[in-house]
């Protein structure tokens, strides 16, 4: 696969360069919200949606910034964009699925400070992806993020029922688990790019 082909970008971002497990983005929700599977999956989907929206808008905004030669405003523009996108999603959820809205609670507005979203916008700009590549990149990032937190939630649900030294409860445990997950995902490195 060519290095910048769409399928390569997608697979790479979901597996080999997973946003959470390899690039360390989106850790707060990863460690915080992933206690239960039933909140992890909707959180992942909500984040994926925000990522897609932000990616599109960031691409558009960047074109404007470059055209007007005001690229130093990029960071401020992106963060404003993300805050608005999250606000929109919040309002939509509140209206169409109040149960989900309540379940996600404080974690929904926290998507704004989720480094994964801003990181996505920034990386896609640095890498110079075009429109289609950015979309696929955002999709890959969202799927990868969802995959990571769902895996983590599954693991933690299982572990909640086993006996562990009390000192490992909480964040230390999540981090150790995260480390193991990250180690396994390292096996995907070189996927699709190894030959030819």
């Amino acid at each position, binding site marked *: 696969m060519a290095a910048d082909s769409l399928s390569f970008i997608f697979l790479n971002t979901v597996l080999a360069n997973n946003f959470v497990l390899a690039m360390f983005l989106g850790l707060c929700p990863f460690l*915080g919200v992933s206690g239960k599977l039933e909140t992890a999956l909707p959180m992942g989907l909500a984040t994926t949606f925000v990522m897609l929206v932000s990616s599109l808008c960031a691409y558009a905004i960047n074109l404007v910034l470059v055209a007007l030669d005001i690229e130093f405003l990029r960071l401020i523009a992106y963060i*404003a964009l993300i805050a608005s996108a999250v606000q929109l999603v919040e309002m939509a959820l509140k209206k169409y699925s109040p149960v989900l809205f309540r379940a996600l609670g404080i974690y929904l507005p926290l998507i704004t400070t989720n*480094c994964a979203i801003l990181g996505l916008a920034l990386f896609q700009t640095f890498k110079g992806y075009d429109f289609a590549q950015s979309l696929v990149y955002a999709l890959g990032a969202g799927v990868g993020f969802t995959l990571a937190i769902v895996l983590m939630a599954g693991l933690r649900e299982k572990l909640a029922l086993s006996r562990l030294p009390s000192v490992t409860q909480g964040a230390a445990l*999540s*981090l150790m688990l995260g*480390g193991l997950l990250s180690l396994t995902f390292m096996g995907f490195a070189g996927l699709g790019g190894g030959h030819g």
Partner: protein
Amino acid sequence: MSRRRDDRLTWETFSEGLWRENPVFVMLLGMCPVLAVTNSAVNALAMGLATTFVLVASGLLVSLLARYIPRQVRIATYIVIIATFVTLIDYSIQAISLDLYNALGAFIQLIVVNCIILGRAEAYASRNRPLKAVVNAAGMGAGFTFALLCLGGVRELLGAGSLFGFDLFGPNFQPWVVMVLPPGGFLVLGGWLLLFDWMKQRGRETEPLPRGETVHGR
């Protein structure tokens, strides 16, 4: 005029960010850079200092402007202020050292979504006078830098056999490479947290019980 109960500037104002309310080890905030840029001690230090700059500068500005910012738009305003200082430090690092800039990568710009800064602005800087806000921010920054160095130091030591670039173990040292790779970050931070949690638990066990109170489970 709104004032916090205790308006005095004490050593606690600075030190609470170092240990008792250490943003990384206790409050578990700002994790992304902690794992991402701590593959070497130098990077960890640079990131810590950059974040401290943004913490202090935005804390100062927020504290000065707090009374003029209407409640409804305060978060948006704080974010704009923080983003401004992050952009400033981003350009400054580029001007100082391109190598450092490339090493830290996008994580400099990601300081803007570091929950510590927004959290501090909202919970502290907006409710205290400028001097206190600055001192507290400096303490938080110092605590954050300390946490980063704990991680960066261990990871660089084990993963590359050096500290701050100084080779410590000689050429026959077999580096534990995974330490400077992503899984190492997770594992080392988990290790530190285990250590601190254990120390806290021991401290609690050896404390004399206040009279008349029963011990509740953790």
